[in-house]
């Protein structure tokens, strides 16, 4: 009886100790500084602010400004988004207040992106997109069907944040010889090697530190800087939202957004795995992680990587549905001889979001199998344009070459196939804007890939 009570007490105290927020004390052995927290991911938040600001300036088409937020590391750069709003003040207004000397481009994926003409690397593609955006009015190219604001933003999130976290920190950096836990990350830091590696991955996800105590809807509203959720966002109650730990950025926002619409649990799944993994590292108390601990840590990393990939695929799925709906609207307006310019603008915008997210899936060095070629072919290098043309290549001067792609409305069938491909390849759950009428669920039931040759 006594033993049972004791074990119950221990269990209760352990669960009480389990972190509910991404806050962890110093465990580095021999540390004699004044820091009380070992959590640090300011550089990642600086890149989130760079990305948000880049998206703002991409809509203006000023190349110098875009490069300021894409590739420059100069001091004094102003944060263009998020900025303080009535009822939602933010703490920082300069990139340097988050971290100095950071850029987006050097952290972007340097492998080949097959879904864009010319097979550029991720870094080259970002530069090309910025160059091309600078030649347009407000980042919109109606001739080739490109919305550069969307293409740059959605692809950059994948090529930088998703890539660095999943392909770098949660993969190779978890090996025993990489930033061991019994050493400081760098001389003088208050955190160990493995603590910081994990923190950097978490920073790229973009969730507020108190994410586990927030609902998906609240996370979405924090990104939108809705004054109604300010009290929830300002976790430390200092009257301002600290971008370093209290704001929701990038894929954390998209995960929460999908969950808020579909009732799925991507945001909290990823958040919980990050917190649990970090707790495991803290529990090692500054000693090198054992093989068993690293194995467990890799399991948390796998949960994060899978759900993160699903979030991006869910977003692509949703926008494939939007592209389908836009084509339907265009057909109706055309039949009524109305003005299609607004519907076409939406079509290009949604295609940019679809393509940006689809390219992001390619930008983390993960093997997508047949899905990669399928997505590249079905989505193509541009939407199918009026006159049934589609971008098919680059010419010798880097200009886009168009060719006939069949009837514009037939592109809807491609969107159905894209949705099926995404749903099947990434085991999607939310499937927002589903234009397949629930096909992937039936296909799963039919177990269509059965291979045995069975007689009757």
């Amino acid at each position, binding site marked *: 009886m006594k033993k049972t009570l004791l074990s119950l007490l221990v269990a209760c105290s352990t669960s009480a100790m389990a972190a509910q927020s991404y806050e962890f004390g110093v465990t580095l052995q021999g540390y004699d500084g004044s820091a009380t927290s070992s959590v640090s991911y300011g550089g990642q938040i600086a890149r989130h602010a760079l990305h948000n600001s880049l998206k703002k300036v991409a809509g203006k088409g000023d190349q110098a400004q875009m490069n300021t937020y894409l590739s420059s590391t100069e001091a004094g750069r102003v944060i263009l988004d998020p900025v303080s709003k009535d009822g939602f003040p933010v703490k920082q207004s300069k990139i340097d207040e988050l971290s100095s000397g950071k850029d987006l481009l050097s952290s972007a994926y340097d492998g080949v992106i097959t879904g864009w003409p010319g097979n550029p690397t991720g870094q080259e593609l970002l530069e090309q997109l910025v160059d091309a955006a600078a030649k347009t009015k407000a980042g919109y190219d109606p001739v080739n069907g490109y919305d550069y604001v969307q293409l740059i933003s959605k692809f950059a999130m994948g090529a930088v944040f998703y890539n660095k976290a999943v392909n770098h920190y949660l993969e190779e950096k978890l090996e025993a010889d990489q930033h061991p836990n019994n050493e400081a990350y760098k001389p003088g830091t208050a955190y160990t090697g493995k603590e910081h590696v994990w923190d950097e991955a978490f920073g790229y996800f973009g969730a507020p530190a108190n994410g586990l105590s927030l609902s998906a809807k609240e996370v979405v509203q924090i990104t939108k800087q809705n004054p109604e959720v300010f009290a929830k966002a300002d976790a430390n109650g200092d009257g301002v939202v600290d971008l370093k730990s209290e704001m929701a950025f990038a894929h954390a926002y998209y995960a929460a957004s999908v969950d808020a619409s579909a009732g799925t649990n991507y945001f909290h799944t990823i958040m919980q795995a990050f917190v649990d993994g970090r707790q495991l590292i803290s529990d090692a108390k500054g000693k090198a992680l054992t093989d068993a601990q690293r194995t467990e840590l890799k399991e948390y990393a796998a949960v994060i990587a899978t759900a993160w990939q699903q979030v991006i695929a869910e977003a692509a799925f949703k926008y494939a549905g939007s592209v389908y709906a836009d084509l339907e609207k265009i057909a109706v307006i055309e039949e009524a001889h109305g003005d299609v310019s607004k519907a076409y603008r939406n079509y290009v915008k949604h295609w940019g979001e679809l393509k940006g997210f689809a390219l992001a899936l390619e930008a983390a060095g993960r093997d997508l199998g047949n899905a990669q070629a399928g997505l590249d072919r079905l989505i193509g290098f541009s939407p199918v344009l009026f006159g049934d043309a589609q971008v098919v290549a680059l010419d010798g001067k880097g200009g886009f070459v168009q060719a006939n792609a069949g009837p514009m409305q037939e592109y809807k069938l491609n969107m159905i196939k894209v949705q099926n491909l995404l749903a099947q390849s990434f085991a999607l759950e939310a499937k927002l804007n589903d234009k397949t009428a*629930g096909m992937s669920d039936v296909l799963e039931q039919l177990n269509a890939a059965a291979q*045995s*040759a069975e*007689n009757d």
Partner: protein
Amino acid sequence: MLESYLTWLMEELATAGSSLLDLRKRVSLWYLLSAVGFAFVVFYWRYGKHGWQRLLPYVSPKVWLSRSSRTDVGLWLCNRLLLALLIPKTLTHALWISGLYYYWQKQGLTPLGLGWSTTWVMVLFTFCYVIADDFSRFFTHWCLHKVPMLWAFHQVHHSALVLTPFTVFRTHPVEGVLFFMRSLCVQSVMVSVFLVLFPNQVSLWQIYGVLVTTFLFNVLGANLRHSMVVLSYGPRIEKWLISPAQHQIHHSTDVAHYDRNFGVLLAIWDRLFKTWLPGNDQQTLKFGTGRAIDRTGVIGHWWIPMMDCADVIRHGVAKRCRNLKKRLTIREP
């Protein structure tokens, strides 16, 4: 190169082996055992305490270790490897269904909007799917017997001298491709039409992830069809459902039994096509084709049908040439 080939080989064989625990496969251990349980109950009810003796052939080492039985297993594993290369693994069904789903809508097919609950749609879809699937299996099987070029391949299944549950895999790879195409056609048409008529409501009624009828069919002794255990459902039920005894008649060497009982689940197709014969527990049958193929191994079962098919084509061409010559001769003044 060799390493990746071996990995692939082992993975495919492991997947084949996993069928023994997979409820979606007829040869799952659960169904192999449930067939014994089902037959035991029926025989006890019909023949009393000695009824169980009728089950002895099911576990007879003489049957399981025979060359015919070993060829069943050999074809199962070898076909598995070959078909993994011949049949595209994923997305074929999805692409076809997507295409048809889009095509029907272009042709003006729209949702029925009847306001039916998802449960009713599931029941209706499952019913229609089972009927279409069963008929397509019957008709494919009928064609395999009636078209000489197809029989050349289907003879592989009939060359079994003894029947075991693994005879279900005794199939020529070409026939395996035909079965794949049959399933592709039925699933594509049924699913695409229903998705248009009842968007976001289409699903199959399943038990443990298996289509309800397949589950019941397998639990209630589907494995006895290919076994030396003779079990009839009785004259009344056999008019509607194909019994193990009826399928064994289909495998019989007796000329009177040729081209009978093509059905899988339902007997109504055989009655419509006048190929239905009842079975009974007392029937004694011999199995096989009576040809050399009966006594060959895997290679023979792959090769002989190709030669036979080539013969059929050669004779067909020669006959056409003769007919053409005859017609031309008649026309000459």
